[in-house]
């Protein structure tokens, strides 16, 4: 019944990932930015995991996307 700790998908974990549309820099120069690992949140599942671990263990949350919540652990 107690739950000091949960994993929770950030409500908006994907919401700003689309922000880095890579259409601006010259096409031939943009290749490195177009790699998946260069997107703002390249591993959404892992990012959500981390966000929730630290949400439940520390007094700060969010910042990059919406700040977690939805669990009785804090």
């Amino acid at each position, binding site marked *: 019944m107690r739950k000091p700790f949960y994993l929770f998908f950030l*409500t908006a974990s*994907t919401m700003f990932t689309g922000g880095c549309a890579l259409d*601006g820099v010259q*096409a031939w*120069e943009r290749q490195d930015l177009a*790699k998946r690992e260069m997107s703002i949140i390249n591993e959404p599942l892992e990012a959500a995991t981390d966000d929730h*671990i630290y949400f439940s*263990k520390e007094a700060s949350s969010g910042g990059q996307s919406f700040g977690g919540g*939805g*669990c009785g652990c804090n």
Partner: protein
Amino acid sequence: MQLKNKNKKAISIALAAATSSLLANAAVGEENDVGWEIDTSVLYYGEQDDRVEDTSLALRIARRFEDGRAFVAGLSTDSLTGASPTGAVPLNEPQTFTRPSARGQYVTQPGEIPLDDSFKDSRVAGYVSWTQPFGENWTANVGASFSTEYDYEHLGFNASLARDFNNKNTTVAAGFAYAQDELDPEGGAPMPLSEMRGVGDTSNKLSGTQDKSVTDLLIGVTQILNERMLLQVNYSFSQSDDYHNDPFKFLTVLASSGAPVVGPDGLYSYRFESRPDERTKHSLFTKLKTYIGGGALDTSYRFMTDDWGINSHTLDMRYRFNISERNYIEPHLRFYQQSEADFYQANLIAGDTVPNEASADYRLAEFTGTTFGVKVGHKFNNGNEASARLEWYNQDGTAKLAGVPGGANVFPELDAVIFQVSYRFHL
């Protein structure tokens, strides 16, 4: 021929510009036909000394359509066991505590940090989101989330709007989220600052459910700095109202000699915590992604300040080094530091006026969290990807007994291991 009258270099420049614009536009389309992307993961999180253990299964499905619309949904389950610090301080004698349900008791041995071992829970959480572009440069996103567990329910929704500028080198986004949480602990939530009672005594319990609402606002800018550098800066504001207490956390009341004080029903005296009924937070988050040395370096820093008196700094760095075309290794370092909340105190002193707000929850104390870990990943022929990461997380801080001789530090140091295996595939 008329062409010979033109400046040939100007033609070559015009051609290069037109070509680059054509290929850039084509790049938008090319991301589109990946079908369903499915992410799965299994996580084990375990703390030392049989404290909290969690096994979590997570699934995320995403589909990006030709025209930029996107659907994302996720589902996760957690199953938790173990014990967690209650806020009570270790004593030189055995301590008996009544379980939060008031249906039983447990004993902590002399010198040991009191841990409540009575939880065992499972939780299911999910979310959906939809992204919709409008015209050339606008993108809207709406989403909803829920979670459910034995005594906690959460429902939230969010919406955001992003606008691309500067040939899509700059994106400005603004978002809004609202969540309503409802807590209904077994036997009722304790009255703030009431003393712990014996088994079966529910006279200090509140009736009904305890609610909390959270409103978040976020504005952010993402800027492509050059062909291998990307910067994001976000400001976020969060306002939460009503019930913020953890109904399972309390403070030990000590005599000024440092000895425990006898309370109701033959127990020592412990008072349930009391937090303010609102909290306002401001965060500034910046992230720099750099492609360097054949790999992606991800560096982020967050400053958070709130009206509880907590300031925190978070620095996170990871570098994905490509060992070969298919394999990568990614070291990760994270450093976190927070100051204590104004109302944080490790204990209460008998005879002193009981403050309106007090908590001995170590998560509101001053502490430093350090994470280091490493991840390895492998990409398969068909574009699928498997990865595993192993990380260590340590917390060490200051929770000094106040108003007693010695002022010992009773911060419950934490060592945890995080192990996660993930697999991504496409349908």
